[in-house]
């Protein structure tokens, strides 16, 4: 191991994970297992993982104690929370966001009313459409030189997910570096029943970073749920793909690295 790698893997860092876990069984299921998985990873890798539904933790004083902030399923809504988070990021903080944390759609309960976050920081703007029902995809590694994609093959099979497409074409934004995308071997992706829920072609970024911030957004974070039989039983796990887990852990270690 190089000295830098040794240093990174033994450095103590603190993660603050924020979630809501209220509105969608698929997201609630993901949040529950994410908290379990990150707690296990914290024990294994020697970092501190603190998870809470208290979004008021997004204030400058609290945030100064954390090297990485994670949004598991939503974004902050209160203006003062948003302002504190933006300031934290602009002062060199690090962030990981999953699936619905990037969602905005006007009109909806999550209007696109935060331009810095959606257009500049994440870059995707608004949600446009999704696949259904949740399924694995073959993901293509778009940037094999990034630390988050270390030890991954050029393609790998993901855990099941509801895949999003976005209003902005982030492939055309040089601020955004795409790390993972849907590989064409995935098509057709989704099973419907609606035709627009099945993707047959196209370029769909899945995970990316913004070169101006220490951040990684990934579209994973939506489990398959047994809605039909009304049991709401979880049918899949976002942490069932070993390479995907490797990506998430690589990403977290990179985010925690001081540079």
């Amino acid at each position: 191991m190089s000295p830098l790698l040794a240093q990174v893997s033994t450095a103590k860092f603190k993660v603050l994970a924020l979630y809501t876990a209220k509105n969608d069984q698929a997201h609630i299921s993901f949040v529950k297992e994410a908290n379990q998985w990150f707690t296990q990873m914290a024990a294994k890798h020697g970092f501190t993982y603190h998870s809470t539904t208290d979004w008021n933790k997004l204030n400058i004083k609290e945030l100064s104690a954390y090297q990485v902030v994670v949004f598991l399923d939503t974004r902050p809504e209160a203006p003062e929370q948003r302002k504190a988070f933006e300031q934290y990021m602009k002062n060199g903080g690090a962030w990981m966001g999953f699936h619905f944390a990037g969602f905005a759609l006007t009109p909806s309960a999550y209007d696109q009313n935060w331009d810095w976050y959606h257009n500049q920081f994440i870059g995707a703007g608004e949600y446009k459409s999704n696949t259904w029902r949740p399924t694995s995809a073959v993901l293509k590694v778009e940037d094999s030189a990034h630390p988050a994609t270390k030890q991954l093959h050029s393609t790998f099979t993901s855990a099941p997910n509801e895949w999003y497409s976005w209003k902005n074409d982030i492939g055309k934004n040089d601020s955004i570096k795409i790390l993972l995308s849907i590989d064409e071997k995935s098509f057709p992706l989704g099973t419907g029943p609606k035709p627009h829920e099945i993707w047959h072609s196209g370029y769909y970024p899945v995970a990316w970073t913004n070169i101006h911030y220490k951040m990684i957004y990934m579209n994973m974070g939506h489990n398959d749920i047994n809605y039909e039989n009304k049991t709401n039983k979880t049918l899949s796990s976002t942490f069932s793909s070993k390479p995907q887990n490797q990506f998430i852990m690589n990403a977290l270690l990179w985010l925690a690295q001081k540079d």
Partner: protein
Amino acid sequence: MAQTDQASTPFKVLALAENGGHHIRYSQAAKIWLTQLATQHHFSVDYIENTDKISETFLSQYQLFIQLDYVPYGWKPVASAAFEKYITSGKGGWIGFHHATLMGEFDGYPMWQWFSAFMGGIRYVNYIPSFVSGEVIVEQVEHPVMKGVPSTFTVKTEEWYIYDKSPRPKVQVLARVDEASYQPDSKIKMGDHPVVWINPEMKARNIYIFMGHSPDLFENEAYKQLVQNAILWAAGRQ
């Protein structure tokens, strides 16, 4: 005496720095260091965080424009026109650090074609996200900007942008980084890799210095000497 008079004449510097982002700690360290340097070398520094104020009239007050980690996109049209005139007419000097070569289509803005030509006709391609150290090799030891700078020096923490091509055919390269020296090694390389250069086509004294990410640069004696020399040279004081 003309030489002595010019060297000691006070001058005004405009510094444009982003108000946040990955490089904020560099800009903060730079300000502290610039304040000390300003006292020693008879200049004042005015800071701005965006291009709203920039116009021909505004720029005419300043003998030196320091683009201290500010991107070359999203400028107000009046500001970009005024800047082009400032440089092409030689109204003052310019130093650009780091972000000044983020040429491309960023955040929905088109690439600023004039600025890309100013930087040697390049386009940004990638960066080393894990940051590595590299050896900088001075190529023009006789240039005033390199006075007192060792012929090679180590920069500990940089992301070493790569571009679609080397700017070398269109600029005067004062220093390059030796990619073989990267610790740890990285796959993100471009071959000939200039990191300090001047564009002699422009009337303004101008210099681009790539290094400008980590605040630890202001503990690097070679870097501080380079930047001090660049300021005095670009302002016509050396």
